[in-house]
């Protein structure tokens, strides 16, 4: 469990980082918190020639709210965001962050790193997709912004090009009159979710987001339904996503939890909105 040899660059400025990335397109990886990449390096699942450590880039250390968005720089750890006082403006993010890994891993793991990794079970890609957020990508050629749906394309696959890196993620603030809920089930607390479910509801209906079942977060908009109507809608979603089997759970178990957790988060959202 020792990584293959690599060159290590720890630039002081973003433009330096992008220059190194441009110079070593295809063979460089960006390192932020290293909570996924570190393990993959040690297992030699990835063997980059150059590692560009952006954790010290002051330009990427910001969390700010403007334009109805919380923008989180690529060097911001999950714990920093969790402790940020303005987080209450986006309750779903606040509800979800404690489920991201463990206290220890959140000290180093970054918000944008989790998005870049694109694990289908990860909580943060699910939240970004739920909120119709976006990632800001930069390269020497310039920068572009991709919506969550356009960004993550599959299991650990994104639309990020080899000379690009995430510089920030943008989470829209909660709209007034919304409520949200998050639940997940995994083998143990802090594990990768077998199924994760998030809901954001408003007067007209509810959005349901499911992680861990399809290759990317799946978001569905539903009218407010009860009883058999909700059962049917959740069953349809479960079968659309279908899921696959692995050592932790069967596809059938995943579908069952789409129905179960989906009902729970929708119920919690509904309760918060209408029975308050």
């Amino acid at each position, binding site marked *: 469990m020792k990584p293959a040899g690599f060159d290590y660059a720890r630039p002081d400025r973003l433009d330096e980082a992008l220059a190194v990335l441009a110079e070593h397109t*295809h063979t460089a990886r960006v390192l932020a918190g290293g909570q996924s990449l570190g393990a993959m390096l040690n297992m030699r*699942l990835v063997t980059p020639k150059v590692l560009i450590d952006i954790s010290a880039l002051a330009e990427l250390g910001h969390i700010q709210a403007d334009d109805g968005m919380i923008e989180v720089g690529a060097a911001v750890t999950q714990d920093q965001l969790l402790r940020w006082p303005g987080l209450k403006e986006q309750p779903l993010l606040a509800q979800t962050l404690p489920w991201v890994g463990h206290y220890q891993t959140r000290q180093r793991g970054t918000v944008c790193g989790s998005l870049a990794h694109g694990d289908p079970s990860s909580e943060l890609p699910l939240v970004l997709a739920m909120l119709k957020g976006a990632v800001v990508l930069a390269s020497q050629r310039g920068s572009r912004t991709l919506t969550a749906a356009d960004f993550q394309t*599959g299991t*650990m696959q994104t639309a990020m090009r080899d000379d690009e890196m995430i510089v920030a993620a943008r989470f829209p603030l909660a709209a007034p009159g919304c409520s949200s809920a998050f639940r997940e089930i995994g083998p143990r607390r802090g594990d990768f979710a077998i199924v994760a479910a998030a809901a954001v509801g408003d007067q007209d209906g509810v959005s349901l987001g499911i992680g861990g079942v399809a290759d990317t977060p799946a978001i569905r908009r539903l009218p407010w339904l009860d009883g058999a109507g909700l*059962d*049917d809608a959740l069953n*349809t979603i479960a079968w659309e996503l279908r899921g696959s*089997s692995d050592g932790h759970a*069967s596809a059938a178990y995943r579908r069952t939890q789409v129905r179960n957790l989906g009902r729970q988060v929708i119920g919690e959202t509904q309760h918060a909105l209408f029975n308050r």
Partner: protein
Amino acid sequence: MGMVGQSLERVEDLTLLRGGGRFADDLAEPPGCLHAAFLRAPVAHARIEAVDVSAALALPGVTTVITGADIARETKPFLSGVKVDAPQFPLAVDRVRYVGEPVAIVIARDRYRAEDALELIDVRYEPLAAVIDPEIAAGDDAPLLHNDAGHNVLHERRFRYGDPQTAFAEAAHVVETTVRYPRNSCTPIETFVVLAEHRPGEDTYEVTANFQGPYTLHTVMARALKVAGNRLRLRTPPDSGGSFGVKQAVFPYVVALGIAAKLAGRPVKWVEDRLEHLAAATSATNRVTTIRAALDGQGRITALDYDQLEDCGAYLRAPEPATLYRMHGNMTGAYQIDNLAIHNRVVVTNKTPTGLMRGFGGPQVYFALERLVDLAATRLALDPMELRRRNLIPGEAMPFTTTPGAVLDSGDYAATLAKAVREGGLEELKQRRTAARAEGRLYGIGYAAVVEPSISNMGYITTLLTPQQRQRAGAKNGALATATVSFDPSGAVTVAVSSVPQGQGHRTVLAQVVADELGIDPGDVVTVTDHDTLKDPWSIASGNYSSRFAGAVAGAAKLAAERLAKRMKAIAAPDLNVPIGDVELVDGLARSISNPDNVIALVRVAAKAHWSPLSIPEDAGAGLRETAFWVGRELREPDEQDRVNSSGAYGFIFDYCGLEVDPADGSIRIDRYVTAHDAGRLLNPALADGQIRGGFAHGLGAALLEELAYAPDGSFLSGTFADYCPPTASELPELMILHDQSPSPFTPTGAKGLGEGNCMSTPVCIANAVADAIGKPVLTLPLTRPRVLELLGESEPADPSPPRPAIITSSGNGHALKGNGSHIVPASPEEVWAVILDPDHLAALIPGCHNLERTGENAYRAEATLGAGPVKGRFTASVTLRDLDPPRALQLSGSAAGGLGTATGQGEIRLTPVEGGTRVDYFYAVLISGKVAAVGGRLLDGTARGVINQIFTRLADSSQSQTEPKTETMPSLRSRLPRWLGGAP
């Protein structure tokens, strides 16, 4: 008041908590030390055709590469408990028999470079059929692991005690069940560490390893190294990051590293990493047990009949098959059962060899026995606790010899059970169950009554021999424990034991025991916890296993301290001017009992013995050092009727718990867990409770979470702690611990072991409670949430809209991917067919394809870089097409191998003309093994989908480019081809 029995704070903790521990990896490396890395088998069963190490050797910084041929030349095969023709070495010699089996050792300037070189070793494997299921492996036509042994069942014996046949014939009730105990491990946080040197002048090996014993294995190692015992100097470090039995299994690596140091001519160090540990260190045995009980009309069990099929993995590694025999005297559990039949078989399968593990044999036996007792209670419509009570061995019968020969030393089991019921609040749990059930909730109560053996008899393993074989081989018995206590000239006391502490608090307890005998403050005692086989007393039973510390090792320390105290009194008596019988040692003084003002400081007594040896009484002896050997007199060899007192002391545990199952997700909430122990005298109650909590955590993990999982082809699927799931603090409920203390008459301290008991009782107690909650039998573990939901057996609502538009779907268990799907390609079937069968076009379809060549008619060899996101590996694949039915269908099969793993698979493609082009239907089934299967099972499926999606996107693009080149917006296939073919991954 004595120190023994008090909850003294651990003397170990201040140093450990400040980061001052001296663990194996902390010890200084000698100058010139090199580092080793192991190449391990990626497949479960294969013949090694060739090993080419030239590229690895050519890498700068690499000193030596050792293969099985070197090891076969330099060592003798390891001895094991059963004499069969199934030789085993620290490296695979001509065949690999489990995933993770060491194949070669690279020795280099550092570990990084050594691992670089591993990737350059080229091993050619000829795959053999693997067998994972013990029942299949035990069949006569199963693939053989060891050809010369002639069968995979390497040991079989039947035992009969009393008259089980008549008892079953006359029984009012007979109950039977078959259970499967899974593979799990105790996964200490510190992995194996070995630092080896070889001194060629004397052909002596000096090894430091975090070995835990038993020291029977020292003999095994020395023999393998072809040296006498005094030429294998084995040292252990002062501190340990846990073992739970597991560190016994470092012994093959001690031999491997010894040879590595010899051949490299330099000291060599190896630190096992977590991937190596989970895949290949060791494991508990998995066992299939069919158990029957005969009961009379009153619910008395009159006979038991066991059929045990023990799976020891690929080799019977010493001391196996000890897991099967450790419990032999306890096969009747906590019950008085006069008739017993046992059929034991030991089978080898293509899995990691098994070894010592906390609980060692107990979890397997009690999972069968205590599940069966519950089934019997159901059959007789008796309360499961009542049925247990009726069968418990009565307290007045102690010491009680069980039907298979264990001499249960002390205890009043019924009294401990009654105490647990009373103080643990069983009635309250029953009320909760009633209330919950009234609301339709799934609440259950489970019980387990367990006898916990400790201090293994060195002769128990010989029960596997027939009495005639034993007579020829000579008796093996006893359980020597060794301790040394000394006063130095300053009057300070030092204790050393031939045990290897693994964090339990040996130093604290030894100080308590010795302080009481010598009348001194335990804070003044220093205990040495590292061990050196050349300088320190030891014997084959030495080490830290079978919960032997409190009874045997602390007992030996007590004996040594008693002797030393006697001599101190003899030295002090003339100075006090009183007879020896009037001297007591108390508060650091030798004191006259009759005249407590008449005292002399012990430091002066000690100083006198050192400075003026001629001035002390001759019968007080010379030198203030006492080494005691305690043997365990009751631990006789098995008798002619195969009865064996397999352990020196036996504790009793009665557990029960109330829990609730959530039918929505299968999760289990433990409402209350009560564990009542009688482990004899408690030397330090706080440390005892710590041991019980640790055993409970392991037991809970085994019950709910932990399994070393293998695929049917032998691929290992639990390669990281993301897939092998020991419980964390979040998963552990509060534990209510109760104690009785019936001192053992057979151990010097009156103490018995207690650290393993909950590994035996907790898994089955939880299983019984879950069975009670859901009203269905629980026949295997772990009870993961998905598995509990499966047991509940509710079918899921149907897919509302079949048939679905075709998408890629697949189902498997991570390593076995099966999928099917279909795509519409805007081209005629003939055009699609042409693309598929043209090597150039085919190459362009495969993402990351570097080259593709035709190797025969309809046979191809390709090199491609495949993967998902950043995880990519270069694979060499060979693919054969067959059953060609142009332009309608073809079959393909092939295999791929690369650094990330290997894959074998087959598939089918069907082309059907449809409006707008051709529908391409496909089906694939792929088995993946090696690194990605072990660590990435969760992600393989999505990755495979990603790769296949890319292929069809390209197929659609390329067919389109042929048919409608003018309307194509993307660059045409022909213009992209050169880029793909020559392009970077």
